[in-house]
């Protein structure tokens, strides 16, 4: 018996070797590893397209698994769209609400290609929601609200982990957006149904992030924190920024720790001392 382990969902390329190979894998994997393989199969439409997983599922059971995958995807994105776009849904008819998208033909195409919880699918679904909602109102705040909800939706619908790296890196779903309306004042005003006050207008930059435990943060960025985050986004050496006269090392460390704590960046404080 070959004792090699196959990563969950890994696919063999040669059909002739597949049946024999899959039989070996079935015995080589622990039950827990096999469960991982099933979970990966159910979440990844690309895997399902190329493999019926007949080694672990019977032929008819494979068809059932396909149906279950579609059910999972529709349920997942319906829930995330409901939660992510609930402010905009409150001011249009329920038939036009973002969550109703999952029952449409355009979403069927996404279901057949999606990786559940991936950033790419979250972005695709979110963009579809914004495009379908945009025509329903003409006010200036409407587009900004949809962009705000889109960024929030990306956090709700992305569970994909960001690859580890030696230096701080922006987490896969972290989003920074500048707005011409102030949040959360705009959201409070939406609920009040009063005339739009001038205090709702104003430039603001907001960071949306998600921790590995799934807690979502929406925070207004000050200029210095934004500078650090944008330097990380550009892949710049933070030691250069830290060596700038304007920065005290402890402040830089504190900023990085905060960004890490809210899930915006993947690792904590690197060595910030500039090599002399």
């Amino acid at each position, binding site marked *: 018996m070959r004792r090699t382990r196959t990563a969950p969902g890994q696919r063999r390329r040669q059909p002739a070797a597949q049946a024999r190979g899959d039989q070996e894998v079935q015995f080589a994997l622990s039950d827990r590893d096999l469960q991982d393989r099933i979970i*990966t199969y159910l979440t990844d439409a690309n895997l399902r397209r190329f493999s019926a997983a007949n080694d672990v599922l019977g032929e008819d059971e494979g068809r059932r698994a396909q149906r279950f995958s579609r059910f999972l995807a529709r349920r997942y994105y319906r829930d995330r769209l409901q939660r992510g776009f609930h402010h905009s849904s409150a001011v249009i008819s329920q038939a036009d609400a973002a969550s109703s998208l999952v029952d449409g033909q355009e979403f069927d195409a996404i279901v057949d290609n999606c990786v559940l919880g991936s950033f790419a699918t979250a972005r695709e679904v979110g963009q579809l929601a914004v495009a379908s909602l945009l025509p329903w109102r003409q006010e200036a705040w409407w587009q900004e609200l949809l962009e705000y909800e889109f960024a929030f939706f990306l956090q709700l619908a992305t569970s994909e982990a960001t690859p580890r790296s030696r230096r701080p890196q922006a987490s896969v779903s972290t989003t920074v957006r500048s707005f011409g309306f102030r949040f959360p004042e705009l959201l409070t005003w939406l609920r009040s149904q009063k005339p739009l006050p001038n205090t709702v207008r104003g430039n603001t930059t907001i960071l949306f992030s998600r921790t590995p435990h799934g807690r979502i943060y929406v925070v207004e960025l000050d200029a210095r924190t934004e500078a650090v985050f944008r330097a990380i986004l550009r892949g710049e050496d933070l030691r250069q920024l830290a060596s700038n006269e304007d920065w005290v090392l402890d402040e830089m460390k504190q900023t990085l720790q905060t960004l890490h704590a809210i899930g915006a960046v993947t690792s904590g404080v690197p060595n910030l001392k500039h090599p002399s």
Partner: protein
Amino acid sequence: MPSIPHDRLSIGTFYNPHLAQFTLDHPELIDHLSMADPPALEDEFFRKIQQQFPLLLHDYLGQLSDPLSKFALARARDLQQRYQGPWVAEHFQCLHTQDHARSLDYVFPPLYTEEFLKRFCENALVLRDAVGAPLVMENIPGFFSVRRAQMTEAEFLRRFFERTGCGFLIDVPHIWLAAYYRGIDPRQYLADFPLDRVIEIHVAGVEHDRDLEGPWIAPTPPNDEILQLACWVAERAPELRAVTIDVFSPAVSAEQLADSMRRTRAAFATSTAAN
């Protein structure tokens, strides 16, 4: 803080924050509330809710196929200290990969094998000790079967309860669905389940699902078939203390919830009177 009665069956539902006022106004319909999520910070009703109803911890605490993290155990302990329920609940489920890279985000049963049985037993005892309260475990239906299984769902559950002493939270619609997709009668499917361990029953509605091309759980009132099956289970469950209508969704209306509560109360009143 109110508690689940010992001298009669408690019939309750899940806490739906958007129906908080309705819930407070109808103590004659609702005896207890299960908590699927912690209350939101801005939930102005929750203080009164906690004063008026016994609460049951039914959050996602972690999947017991894997050891729970210190974070997860501490969270479970904090929630139980807050709710002070007579038991806490978890599920026979394994929905995310060990590296957390992939998740189904939905209940999904483990493979019914010796390896998983050992894992669930070990991790359940750790959770029970951490929360300092009895643990009840809920059955989860499979929509398809996997060749690797070494035992039936009934044997897996029976051996788990024998080894751990935990209680059984039997979800009747889950049983009904598992039997339906195997093409057998649900009472026949239940024949080997350890009903003497049942502490709590869940009832819920089922509706046709377009993707599954068949019935599945839905946020609708339980139908007569589900309620009759639940009463059949109750007659065989001497330790039963609570029946909970398993519905929590922003889509549920007060009218639907009231209908579910009345139908469930009527079914169990008839069942109790007949015995």
